[in-house]
């Protein structure tokens, strides 16, 4: 069960019209490709995708599930929005409530175990191994955890464990963390147990119906067998502009352990129907990822270009992410920026700047241009800007 209803409010204009799991990532993917591909590669063939916030793009993207081999006669992928029932209707109130409302869906398959995933994270993981671990220990709940640095630990839900991995305490964003094992938001429950706790939780009117806040603490309090499953590898939450930018840049870093080239663990996506990309006579492309449909005649360095991006002669794109269909016109300079889909950066415009060009570091950040925006010729967009409407020619936005 893949929770894909997240709004991602800290991504501002980038998630105005789409849910966080539908965010473009890595040149040809959307975030949700990672958990979906992980499922298929782990041998899971029945997946429910729970949507709520701006589901349109996600619905269209998932479609029949064919790109992930999830168009099955038996099982497959199902988009599960909240729906009206004879006794009233409810939005999904919390993560646990979303699963609880879909109890009838889950019971159709009469499962022994249920895997709960979040659609907001970039990582490669074999869920089959985690399930093996869960079964071996006869656990009621297994939570995937990642070692983070002690400084970062207070930003996460932290698991305090016995040496054998059994969890005795869960602390949500603790000020004084006792361990550095952070929950990755990946849970395996023995379905009968989960159902029991969800039913009790649904009756508690004071509950926020959330796994981290309610279900997990309640299970621990009752002494249920809960284990932490240690994951080591690349994992990234793309909840903010900075982390989305970093997660893309990580793909360009040979030392980051996220390989997309493993033939045994491909990340599948819905591929656009476009010709190979063309790199022109004036182009200089280095340390970058470029995908099909692009036409590049400018300079591109440390950047990720999505399908159908056009970089005209003399334009310079550095340390930036350019989403599908966007055009960077002649002589424009785009640095440390994220430009969303189908926008146009006019001739000679300047978007973002390098950190060393801004003396007051509090004023520096990644510049963001929303989708379908026209930045006029010669306009200047300062770092950290968030552009949500067209910018006229020659206009200089204030820092």
């Amino acid at each position, binding site marked *: 069960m893949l929770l894909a209803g997240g709004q991602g409010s800290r991504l501002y204009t980038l998630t105005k019209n789409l849910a966080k799991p539908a965010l473009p990532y*890595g*040149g*040809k993917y959307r975030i949700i490709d990672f958990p979906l591909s992980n499922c298929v590669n782990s041998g899971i063939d029945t997946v429910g995708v729970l949507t709520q916030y701006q589901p349109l793009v996600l619905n269209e993207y998932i479609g029949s599930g*064919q*790109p992930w081999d999830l168009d099955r006669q038996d099982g497959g992928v199902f988009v599960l929005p909240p729906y009206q029932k004879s006794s009233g209707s409810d939005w999904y109130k919390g993560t646990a409530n979303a699963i609880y409302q879909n109890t009838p869906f889950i019971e159709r398959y009469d499962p022994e175990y249920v895997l709960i995933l979040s659609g907001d994270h970039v990582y490669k993981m074999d869920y089959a191994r985690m399930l093996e671990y869960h079964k071996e220990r006869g656990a009621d709940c297994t939570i995937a955890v990642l070692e983070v640095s002690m400084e970062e630990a207070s930003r996460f839900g932290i698991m305090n464990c016995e040496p054998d991995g059994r969890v005795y305490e869960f602390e949500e964003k603790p000020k004084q963390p006792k361990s550095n094992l952070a929950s990755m938001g990946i849970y395996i429950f023995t379905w009968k147990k989960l159902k029991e706790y969800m039913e009790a939780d649904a009756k508690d009117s004071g509950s926020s119906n959330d796994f981290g806040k309610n279900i997990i603490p309640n299970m621990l309090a009752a002494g249920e067998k809960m284990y932490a499953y240690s994951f080591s590898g690349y994992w990234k939450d793309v909840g903010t502009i900075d982390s989305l930018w970093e997660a893309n840049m990580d793909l*360009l870093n040979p030392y980051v352990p996220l390989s*997309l*080239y493993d033939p045994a663990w*491909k*990340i*599948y*996506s819905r*591929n656009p*129907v*476009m*010709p*190979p*990309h*063309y*790199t*022109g*006579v*004036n*182009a*200089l*492309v*280095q*340390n*970058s*990822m*470029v*995908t*099909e449909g692009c*036409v590049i005649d400018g300079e*591109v360095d440390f950047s*990720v*270009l999505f399908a159908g991006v056009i970089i005209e002669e003399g334009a310079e794109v550095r340390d930036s992410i350019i989403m599908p269909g966007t055009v960077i016109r002649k002589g424009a300079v785009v640095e440390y920026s994220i430009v969303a889909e189908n926008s146009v950066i006019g001739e000679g415009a300047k978007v973002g700047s390098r950190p060393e060009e801004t003396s007051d570091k509090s004023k520096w950040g990644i510049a963001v241009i929303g989708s379908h925006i026209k930045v006029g010729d010669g306009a200047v967009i300062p770092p950290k800007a968030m552009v949500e409407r067209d910018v006229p020619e020659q206009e200089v936005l204030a820092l």
Partner: protein
Amino acid sequence: MMDSSAIGIIFSNMHDDYMGELTNHRTMASIPFGGRYRLVDFALSNMVNSGIQEVGVITKSNYQSLMDHLGSGREWDLARKRGGLCLLPPYASAGSTGVYRGRLDALANIIGYIQRSSAKYVVISDCDVVANIDLKKVIRCHAESGAQITLLYSQQAVTADVSHDITLLEMDVNNRVCDVRINPMASGVQNVYMDIAVIEKELLEKIIMDGRSRNQLSFRRDVLVAQKDKINICAYEFDKYIVRINNLNSYYEANMSLLHADIRSELFPPLRPVRTKVRDEVPVKYGLAAKVTNSLLADGCIIEGEVENSILFRGVKVGRGAKIKNCILMQGTVIGDGASMDYVVADKDVTVRDTRTLMGYVTYPLYIAKGSMV
């Protein structure tokens, strides 16, 4: 409403003999082209983009790679309950004549497939032509002209050395075909038949049955040449970009022509996309010292060296300090560090070890066979 429904028939093996080693392990239809395509993608996409939802692909030999490429036809939206894609190999039905010796012979072997279709027209096509053709327009023109057969042709300069495997048409003032010449001695600008035609299905069935009763095998010789006075055959000029592939040189040139922006935009208009098999490759990764100019690169490549005037298919790796110029490197080619190549066509999965130097010439590109190690 006018009934313009059509069924497509694609000949995958025609012209195989002219392609040398490129067709050693594959059909004409499955020759890789343009970084991520195979030649059949153009014929198939043209049909699908023109509303044809039922396509039979006639195969003869060597069709493993073609089957692998086409699969269920899903990428062309041809995995259908009604119509869709159908592979038509020889020996498929009782009374078949086995490996056929001409288009008419092949059609006779699949007469049942054609008869079962409820379409009004049949579009037949070979795979030697790279072009983006709106067949809807051709079918409409065919219906309006009252022709029984409409042949597509393009105007092309012909020289004696490329006049093999070519059919020339002459038309009268009413655009009716009055002369058909196969592989003639000819030069200058000629009307060259594209081996694509629209025919009334009923008439085609009759032609096939007639041909079978007379043991006729060739569509061009026994129908177009022999019956041009009996049947109303008209011509339709295709005046957009077209390239005909009939040997390694023209294959090389056709690929290289994709480096021109205007040709790419004629071949790959967004509203009439050329569809192909999806391989879920990662975007191309350009390394620290990569230097790529005037080249076409498909996804899955990893570039650490220099690439100029070249076409790189999916999953090609170019090592550090390697220099690739004027090359066509097919899927899975691996070029070692410091290797140097000029005018080379490397077939699939070729490995060129570090520091090797390979050079062909513009009029004689060096071909390296599939899976070779240099």
